């Protein structure tokens, strides 16, 4: 009998905790830090969150990104406007993030998982367990290759890299197919803040190419476009940061 009562009490406690899960003050996942990977991944957001005096001092600040972590290639950060409550700021971040995703188009050819926006930061604390948050940079990736007969291959997956392209001298990356199998790897070596060279190696060297890349900021989304050739001189283009259809319509005509 006592055990049943205890269990019931425990259940009630759990429910109560769940009901307050959206309140930052109750978050058990710890405070955000300037050097956390999510801020390194999105420098413009970090600027608003930590530096810009207009936004950093907002009474409520929320950041939403698509999850799980490999989906986190866009973000939405929202700051109190007028008398907005913490919950309203969270809702707005969530709504903005979802709108961004919808505007960019379907992700089904890049990801096998269902990418959905979640509020990950609210009022200076994490709203999800740290181990579930992006620890590297991820982005949907498309590789376009034209063979010597004029046929074009479209390879869609996800790229991940551990550092900032353009800031670090050399950045290694890998490309996973939608099943999560690593199929390609390569290197970006920057010559300037937004340009440099890249090399790509897939299927244990059975397909490889190299050339130059350019990182583009802004509409429709920050992305990297790398253009080069295979060893046989056939053109190959890799796009990181745009869903497959957008990448194909923008860069798919080799």
């Amino acid at each position, binding site marked *: 009998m006592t055990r049943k009562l205890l269990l019931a009490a425990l259940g009630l406690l759990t429910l109560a905790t769940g009901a307050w899960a959206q309140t930052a003050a109750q978050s058990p996942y710890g405070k955000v830090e300037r050097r956390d990977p999510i801020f390194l991944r999105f420098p413009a957001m970090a600027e608003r969150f930590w530096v*810009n005096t*207009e*936004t950093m001092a907002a009474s409520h600040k929320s950041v939403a990104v698509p999850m799980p972590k490999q989906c986190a290639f866009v973000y939405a950060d929202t*700051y*109190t*406007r*007028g*008398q907005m409550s913490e919950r309203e700021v969270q*809702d*707005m971040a*969530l*709504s903005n993030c*979802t709108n961004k995703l*919808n505007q960019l*188009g*379907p*992700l*089904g*050819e890049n990801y*096998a998982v*269902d990418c*959905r*926006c*979640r509020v990950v930061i609210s009022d200076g604390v994490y709203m999800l367990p740290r181990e579930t948050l992006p620890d590297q940079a991820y982005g949907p990736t498309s*590789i376009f*290759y*034209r*063979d*010597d*007969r004029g*046929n*074009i*291959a*479209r*390879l869609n*997956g996800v790229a991940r890299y551990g550092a900032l392209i353009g800031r670090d001298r050399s950045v290694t990356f890998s490309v996973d*197919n939608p*099943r999560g*199998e690593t*199929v390609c790897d390569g290197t970006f070596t920057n010559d300037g803040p937004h340009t440099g060279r890249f090399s790509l190696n*897939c*299927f*244990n*060297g*059975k*397909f*490889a190419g190299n050339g130059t890349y350019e990182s583009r900021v802004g509409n429709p989304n920050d992305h990297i476009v790398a253009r080069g050739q*295979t*060893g*046989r001189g*056939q053109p190959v283009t890799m796009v990181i940061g745009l869903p497959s*259809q957008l990448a194909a319509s923008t860069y798919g005509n080799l």
Partner: protein
Amino acid sequence: MATSEMRRWLLAGLIALTPAIALAQSASEVERCFQNPGSCSSSGGAPAPAPAPTPAPAASAAPAGPARGPDYTTVLNSPEPDRRKLQESLRTLDKYSGPIDGNLQSAATTKGISDWQKGHGLAATGKLTPSEAVALNNEATKAPIRRLDPSAQVASALAVPPSNADALKSLRARLAERRKAAEPKADAAAQSLVADLKAYVAADGKGPAGEQFAAFAKWYADTKAAGRTVGDIKPAVEDYGDVKAGTAATAEITFDTKQDDKSAAQCMVFAWVVASPRTNTQAFSCDDVAAVEKWKTDQALRSAWR
């Protein structure tokens, strides 16, 4: 001597180039390798057009006698690479999405086999006879690269409910309703501003618009001094809502300016409390988002627009 050395180098070069000749270079091969890297992992060779692993000759599928059932053990006991190949074939045919571990008795693999068998009018046993294994691998080898129909993709993406769907839906509905209600008043406020701006331009720098928006008056004077003329003026409501002093609006105004044959669009954000005359007025560069947001915060704007 020199000739033989040259030959040796040529031979070495040819040897070094040999793997390159075997590289995956046709578009379809590259796509196949990308989708199914396991089939391309063997060293040196071109990505497998995948000959069937043939765990056993097809003939052995035939029952040896009336008492014996179908032969499932041959495939189940076949070497691991062959079992993996069967899983890859199921995967290629979109019947299996689990790991390629050679375990043909896992729930996901037996389900994949059953599905494949059903699709071919075979008994859905979840186990393969040698002839079925050969047929499965052959079919996978011939399978075209599957591309998702883009229109179906768009449709499915639109059909996918957003995260915490109900909350988000109601939030959107609420925002849309609020904005719809505010739209006539916000548009009227923006149009009234545009009328004043046009009057100011028509009067060559005189009128309430310039008195209320010093930054606009300065911009107009600079534009005129630079020999540019102001043409069409288009508004877009940027925000609208209640503030301490009543109702406030912000509007993004685009000015078409011309100099000789060259025209350029310039943009300013105007912010004001709706009154007659307008109060708390200010104009900003469209790039100065932070200043616009600060103005709204100072006015304690409760947006009915966003």
